[in-house]
């Protein structure tokens, strides 16, 4: 039976999009493999490859980059995954500097950068310039956090950078929406209504996320034990909280009310990460974490590849002046925000002062990425009101700034962290791990040798000769490790924490195995696993607490780590 022509055309469009997505994912996978060999941040490599893809024929990658695709489809998984790992306990301790940076810093950034752009870039009206200031104030920690993890930066610095980024995404989005509404011919603006709208947007969004997150965490994740259904519920929560907040006015017939979808996702993710995951079975927890890691990887890859595809090098060159103005503006603003607000916070909370060295990292590590790009790409919906030239200028400035921060700041931040002495994996710790790894590998070799001998495939003389060699190497490496620990006795505490973590995990695996074999009931597994999870969380707490130093403290400004 023949299908209607329109349906055939739609299916063809769908297939084209599917092919394009498959192609982009394949490219992302190749890039992910390549960056393992060359030490380059994944996002940086993606943008560079994306720039190369822009030279492909126009119809080679057929994806309609709409505001909805970016904001409603790609942004929620990025934010939800990022919040799942944020401990409320840790965030609470540094909530003051995080909120100061996210709220005051973003507002300051929006207006100062907006002022620069309105003053120095031809043709960009004031409100559109503030919208740009807002979108470019959203920091993206993905590339920086990857470095933090690889070189062992303190958890406090990580939480400061991640926390600022999560909340400033939401604040930037709200200011962006308000500023855009005030832009264009015939639009009106009043400070009072803007503040009112900001408060409703921000707190309404947070409220929606907190309520939905609480319901899902306390009622569903706690009482249901099915990793597939629970994962599906978390997907519904991430996208649903975004949509409910964004469409709140339409759903409840309140035409003027708009709530922040981004803040709703952030709040929902915090709820699931801090309440929901604690109440689930280990299997569900693992499934959820793996699923969201994958979802964020896909979303992040698509955003950065689409960014590369949208940039035309010639446009960057044509608007180089505007890009330079934007770059100067964001650096000056970041300087004022980080050091200025850092100083104010130091006066407000002297015992929780953010060390100056942390501030250096927060200044230079203020990379811009997925959210800025997403908001800039969403400007395609504003062409009629702002004009094609203004939209194009704002997008090119965004791309220029993101490229600069990723390529210049992103590639130098690791060196800065090491130079400031903030890398918690000093040479002696790496050396200890290397020696331990050798012993671990040799022991595995010796075990395998014994297995081969026991199975009768290796006759005794050869087995004994090889085993002697192995044992000799093992004894020598064990002695070297002992020597190393005699020189650096403090490493023994790290070894203890690592060994205790491994043994608790082994206990947890044994329980799961016992449940699989029917030796213990599911409720016993849940109860004992929850207890082991508490002990694993306790070790993390103890590790962080130990990093605060000894009984006699160095001053916060001198201390490298305050985990």
């Amino acid at each position, binding site marked *: 039976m023949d299908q209607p022509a329109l349906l055939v055309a739609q299916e063809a469009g769908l297939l084209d999009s599917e092919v394009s997505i498959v192609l982009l994912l394949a490219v992302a996978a190749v890039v992910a493999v390549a960056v393992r060999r060359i030490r380059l941040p994944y996002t940086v490599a993606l943008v560079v490859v994306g720039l190369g893809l822009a030279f492909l024929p126009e119809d080679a990658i057929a994806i309609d980059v709409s505001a909805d695709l970016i904001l409603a489809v790609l942004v929620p998984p990025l934010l939800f995954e990022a919040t799942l790992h944020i401990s*409320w*306990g*840790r965030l*609470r*301790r540094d909530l003051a500097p995080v909120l100061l940076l996210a709220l005051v810093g973003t507002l300051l950034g929006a207006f100062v950068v907006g002022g620069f752009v309105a003053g120095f870039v031809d043709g960009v009206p004031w409100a559109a310039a503030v919208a740009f200031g807002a979108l470019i104030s959203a920091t993206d920690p993905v590339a920086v956090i990857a470095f933090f993890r690889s070189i062992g930066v303190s958890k406090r610095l990580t939480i400061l950078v991640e926390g600022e980024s999560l909340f400033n995404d939401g604040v930037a989005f709200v200011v962006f929406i308000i500023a855009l509404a005030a832009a264009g011919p015939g639009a009106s603006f009043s400070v009072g209504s803007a503040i009112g709208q900001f408060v409703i947007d921000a707190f309404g969004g947070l409220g929606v996320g907190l309520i939905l997150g609480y319901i899902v965490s306390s009622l569903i994740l706690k009482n249901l034990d099915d990793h597939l259904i629970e994962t599906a519920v978390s997907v519904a929560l991430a996208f649903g909280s975004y949509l409910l907040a964004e469409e709140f006015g339409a759903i409840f017939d309140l035409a003027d009310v708009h709530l922040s979808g981004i803040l709703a996702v952030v709040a929902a993710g915090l709820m699931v990460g801090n309440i929901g995951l604690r109440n689930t079975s280990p299997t569900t927890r693992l499934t959820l974490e793996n699923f969201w890691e994958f979802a964020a990887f896909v979303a992040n890859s698509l955003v950065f590849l689409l960014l590369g595809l949208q940039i035309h090098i010639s446009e960057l060159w044509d608007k180089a002046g505007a890009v330079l103005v934007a770059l100067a503006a964001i650096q000056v603003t970041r300087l004022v925000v980080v050091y200025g607000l850092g100083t104010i916070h130091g006066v407000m909370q002297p015992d929780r002062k953010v060390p100056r060295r942390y501030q250096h990292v927060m200044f230079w590590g203020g990379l811009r990425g997925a959210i800025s790009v997403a908001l800039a790409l969403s400007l395609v919906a504003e062409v009629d009101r702002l004009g094609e030239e203004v939209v194009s200028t704002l997008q090119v400035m965004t791309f220029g700034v993101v490229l600069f921060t990723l390529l210049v700041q992103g590639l130098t931040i690791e060196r800065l962290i090491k130079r400031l002495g903030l890398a918690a994996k000093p040479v002696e710790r790496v050396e200890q791990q290397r020696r331990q790894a050798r012993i671990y590998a040799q022991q595995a070799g010796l075990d395998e040798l014994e297995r081969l001998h026991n199975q009768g495939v290796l006759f005794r003389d050869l087995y004994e000769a090889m085993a002697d060699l192995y044992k000799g190497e093992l004894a020598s490496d064990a002695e070297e490790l002992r020597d190393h620990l005699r020189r650096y*006795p*403090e490493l*023994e*505490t790290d070894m*203890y*924490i690592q060994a*205790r973590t491994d043994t608790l995990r082994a206990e947890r695996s044994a329980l799961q195995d016992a449940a699989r074999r029917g030796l213990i009931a599911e409720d016993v597994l849940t109860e004992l696993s*929850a*207890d082991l999870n*508490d*002990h694993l*969380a*306790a*070790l993390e*707490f*103890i590790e*962080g*607490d*130990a*990093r*605060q*130093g*000894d*009984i*006699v*403290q*160095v001053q916060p400004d001198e201390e490298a780590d305050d985990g």
Partner: protein
Amino acid sequence: MGDIVCAIRGGPGSYQTRRVALQRAAERGVNVHFLSIVDPVAYEPLHEGEQHAIRAEMAWRDLAMARSIAAHAGLDDVRFTVAVRVGALADTISAYAKEVEAGSILIGSPRPAADAALADGGTEPFAEELQQNVGVNVFVVTPDKPMD
């Protein structure tokens, strides 16, 4: 001559501090009471299960580390206890030292001795305050001057 209270937080100087406490106890024939102190700001918001796990894991760590250090240093005969308390540093150490009727207190510092070691005539305000509160000698173990 009373027992030694060795207050620790698990920081970079804690290994050295524990070792010095065990050595001094062996020299003087007294016991060591290892005291771990938890910061209430981070601890109190946690649920009961986590709080219990933190206290249990800290006690485990302190027992394991003390036994390991004693074995390394050939001090297996020294008797020691471990305790975990939540609270402000100075108040908690003072209260515990009075509770066990300590003869001296040992604390660790990541700073060099020049500006931290009370025992060497330095002026460490925290240690001075502690000494005044409890009325026993307070010694600061530092990375460069472990007092042995």
